[in-house]
């Protein structure tokens, strides 16, 4: 299985963090806030597309509102697959960092 890319990891973690409230706009704002980097909406959706193609997240259509010009939201949730991918990435991380001399000099 291919390892998650950095962007995918960030979005996945954000979705996890947001729990039931993870839809495009919120995910984008949260990930920008957490990472301190600018994320365009397009960039967020690009990653969301890829994650759902791979089956790491599941989408659920939410309610439409006037606020959104009558368009519906799509809430995302990590799937079991996604959790596994995160676990694997984490394991690789730990293995890579394990036993290294400290970088805080």
């Amino acid at each position, binding site marked *: 299985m291919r390892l998650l890319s950095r962007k995918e990891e960030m979005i996945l973690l954000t979705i996890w963090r947001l729990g039931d409230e993870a839809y495009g*706009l919120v995910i984008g704002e949260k990930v920008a806030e957490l990472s301190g980097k600018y994320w365009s909406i*397009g960039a967020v959706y690009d990653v969301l597309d890829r994650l759902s193609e791979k089956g790491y997240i599941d989408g659920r259509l939410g309610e439409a509102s006037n606020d959104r*010009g009558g*368009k519906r939201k799509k809430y995302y949730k990590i799937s079991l697959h996604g959790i596994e991918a995160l676990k694997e990435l984490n394991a690789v991380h730990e293995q890579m960092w394990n036993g290294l001399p400290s970088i805080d000099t």
Partner: protein
Amino acid sequence: MKLLIHIFDFLLKRFSTDENYDLIAGDIKEKYNYILENKGAVAALSWYAFQISTSAPNLAAAKFRRSISMLGNYIKTAFRNIKWHKTVSIINISGLVIGMAACFLILQYVNDELNYDKFNKEFNNIYRVIEKDISNGVEGYDVYLSGNAAEVLMDEIPEVKVAVKFFKWYENKSLKVDNREFEIKQFVFTNEHFFKMFDYELKYGSKSSGLADPNGIILTERISNQIFGNEDPSGKVLVDDRGDSFIVTGVIDDSKYLSHLEFDALVRWEANKYEWARMWNSSLATTYLLINENSDPSLLGEKILDVIKKYEQQSVEVGQLTYDVQPLSDIHLRSEFISNNPEVGKGDINYIYVFSAVAILILLTAFINFMNLTTANAAVRAKEVGLRKVIGAKRAQLIKQFLGESMIISTFSFGLAVLSLYSLEPVFGQIFGKVIEIDLINNYEMTLVFAGLALAIGLLAGFYPAFIISQFNPVSVFQNKNAMRNSGNVFRKFLVVFQFSVTVIMIISSLVIYYQLNYMTGKEVGFNTEQIIFSKVQEPVLEGKDNLIKGRLQQLSSVKDVSITNFVMGGHRVSTSIKKENAPDKNISANLLRIDNNYIDLYGMEIVEGRNFNDNLSEDSNNTILVNEMLVKMLDIKDPINKKILYWGEAKTIIGVVKDFHFGSFHDKIEPVLFNIDSNWLSYSIVMKVTTADMPNTLAGIEKVWVEVFPEAQFNYKFLDENIGAMYNRDRQTAKMVLYFAIIAITIACLGLFGLSSYTSELRTKEIGVRKVLGATTQDIMKLFLKEYSSVIVVANVIAWPVSYYFMNKWLENFAYRIEMNSELFLIGTITALVIAVAAISYNMIRSAWSNPVNSIRSE
């Protein structure tokens, strides 16, 4: 304000996939409204603009990825469908492969034919000089000029930049190197300007020095390899039969060039040491002129005439000979009008038209199959389509899917067709009588044409079913399977009619050609052709040995008769202009045969009036001749015996009239012939009637005598019937090609019928089952099938008859002696087509008729 938002929205829509658009637009709207409320319109708008511009690349990337994966999905489904509908797919693909391969092959052939001589950079400014003779009241064209003409034309006519002569030696020329002897078939004398006009590249040697040496010789690669192996032969010396030596100065790989010029070796005109061949009145060299770009070629004729008149004092009779020029690029295909054209029978523009038409028809039949089967199969697949629609497939998606499938099939077939072209290349040589090289890499224009055709077929064939099927109403599909049966039925029938017409036309055409060939080979030519062999001998070799060789050969028990003549049927003819003694103004051109007293008997010809030449030739003075009936008729002489006619400035007495015989091929009417015994020629043929019981011994005996009498000449015998048969090579080639392509067309049509019938039986399984339960017999079911196709076949025949009648009549007009097209031909054609059609559908017909109704009814 609003406008800007609209523009942004539009951009967003362009960049994102349909699915994402709704979500993103919603998100943006939400945030936009938030900013609008809190920070005002400007901030909101600029935020929007910023979002769009930064999102665009990501969105586009996502969209692109999606479309790729969709494409992959289409391809996957398409392959799955191709696999599910195996019969139809196999029929489709094999039909297309055959059709494409045949079509590409013919196109390649046509392309080759059309590109003859165009490798010469200046081909547009190169012309061949043509002599026009109107002495018979009919125009006769000739391409041979004196070998001296080229230089004077170049000197005297200002717009002629370069003039090249091309004189092919009459016979094989033998060249010796270290005691090994080689026969050069096409030994050509030309001048040093050759490479200034014709852009051949030399493999060894250089164009500038190649013909600079008067003793230089340029060989083709084939000959060079034969003599010297693979090494560079430059500087090697070859010695000819006269003892003259030639130094090899260059090698040309002429197989690379599509050129009407044929040669094995090129030497300088100066090497031509034969007095007679250097005279002004020997017409033997074709002459080519490279003229200035801006000069008018139509004015050249008169200038050439003036120059020739100036140099060639005698023999040009005013008003009878004129000159004209023919563009180089016309020579290969448009030279049929030239009577002694060396290129005759090599190319013909009419065949190019015919074969192009055949190529298109074959491809069309294959295309029609493809389209028919796809539509027909689509009806079978109606349920699948219905289901897809029910679960939300859009029409555009279905169209894409069907188009995708047909594109995949056509691409796949294209690949297979190309492969089979490569692997079958050697076979084509046989079909076309010449090598057709398929080189898709270097010849990329053709590759593009082929690929374009394949793509077009895929698109067009997929288009119709795609639209028809995507229209299906899912509800009716599920309610009633037969609702789909009539979809596109009329159109499909029309296509089958067309396809079948083509098949019948091809069958009838092959039959007509075959009958005509048979007729020609079986028709009496008016003389003996069997058991006759001949061998050529040069005048200096024969000189004074006429009676010796005749006597010696006649002593052999295996030789029944011997005659010496200047002409053998099927060979090069000589004609001369003759006049009636008392009507000196009227010229008639007659073929001239130099014979002896044995000739008439040897050939079994018949003297209808008067007598043959006497056994003791001296009794017949030089002034006696024989003529054939046609000449008597054309001269309009009553009681021709002892009448006099004029030729070569002398009066000759007719002593006998020979019954007409077919002097040339059956393409031509019987021509006037004049026989004399005293004329002198450059070469003769010794014709022998032999017993064929023990041919090897007979030939060995003759050869022994031959070598004794002519130690310096070889005995290269040929059979007369082969020589005559060679006149029909072109026709035989045509017959072969038409036959092969007819078989291809028939195969494709059969595949189509087979496919259609399997579709019918599948669609009507239930109906047939019910019929059988209700008591229908096997015959009844078969009738059901036949009924469906019989009308189609009848209509196709009605169309095919007049069309093939028209075209074959045109073809037959090429022959002065030809068969009549009778109803028998058409009946045979139709019956053949019928039998083939029934055979094609019989498998499915019988399978349906024998099927157990229990199974078919239970099938739903």
